[in-house]
């Protein structure tokens, strides 16, 4: 058995104030579209999106008119039991990302790992600089 010590709580107060400045609230749960990061790699572009708790079969990635559309549903996993804390949110989401240049539509790779979706795109040949011969 543990004994309750009131001084533990007093010392906790200092940690509480320290942690207030240290902690970043978790994001991504309270919006209906996922947060993304866009990277440029040697081959082309890479988009990563935070999709925690979303199954890969519930996500669709589409390339439409030079935009990537990430759409899907985060299905609720609520159990039929009394909840003590309910902070997570569920529902449908949709996000459109405008790409800075044309990409190769036939070479799009999407993978999901640890709740993060990664979409890899390669730069289209049309978008690369072309030297024009002068006759």
């Amino acid at each position, binding site marked *: *058995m*543990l004994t309750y010590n009131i001084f533990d709580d007093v010392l906790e107060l200092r940690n509480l104030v*320290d942690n207030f*400045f*240290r*902690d*970043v*609230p*978790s*994001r*991504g*749960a309270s919006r209906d579209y996922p*947060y*993304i*990061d*866009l*990277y*440029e*790699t*040697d081959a082309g*572009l*890479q988009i990563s999106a*935070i*999709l*925690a*708790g*979303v*199954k*890969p079969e519930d996500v669709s990635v589409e390339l439409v008119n030079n935009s990537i559309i990430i759409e899907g549903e985060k299905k609720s*996993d*609520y*159990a039929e*039991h*009394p*909840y*003590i*804390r*309910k*902070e*997570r949110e569920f529902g449908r989401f949709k996000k459109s990302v405008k790409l*800075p240049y044309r990409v190769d539509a036939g070479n799009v790779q999407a993978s*999901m790992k*640890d*709740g*993060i979706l990664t979409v890899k795109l390669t730069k289209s040949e049309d978008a690369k600089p072309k030297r024009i011969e002068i006759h």
Partner: protein
Amino acid sequence: MATKRMKDNYCEECMIVPVADIYETADAYSLKLEMPGVKKENLEITMNDNELEISGKIQKDETNGKNLKYSEYELFDYYRSFRVGNDIDRNSLKAELENGILTLTLHKSEEVKPRKIQITAS
């Protein structure tokens, strides 16, 4: 410490507090925490006296060789602690990580589970 230590434009001491769902059943408590980007081997769960601590490390070197053009999020290490009561069996903690969701099952100790008392005829 009100100032954040920055190194290469990255906040070293920033932590993300993962959002959590907690529900109670007759024989256990179940916790679900959202920790996207954490690998199983970088996750640490400790039970110390009446404090349950969950921390997950993010590997930053994965972004090397890439050029960030547009950013809406940044991943930091995760940390959250919960205070648990005496009704938890400290030896039977179960943890699962799937799609960035950590599910913890804390079984209640035998003493607090509902028990049916047999009446013996006198």
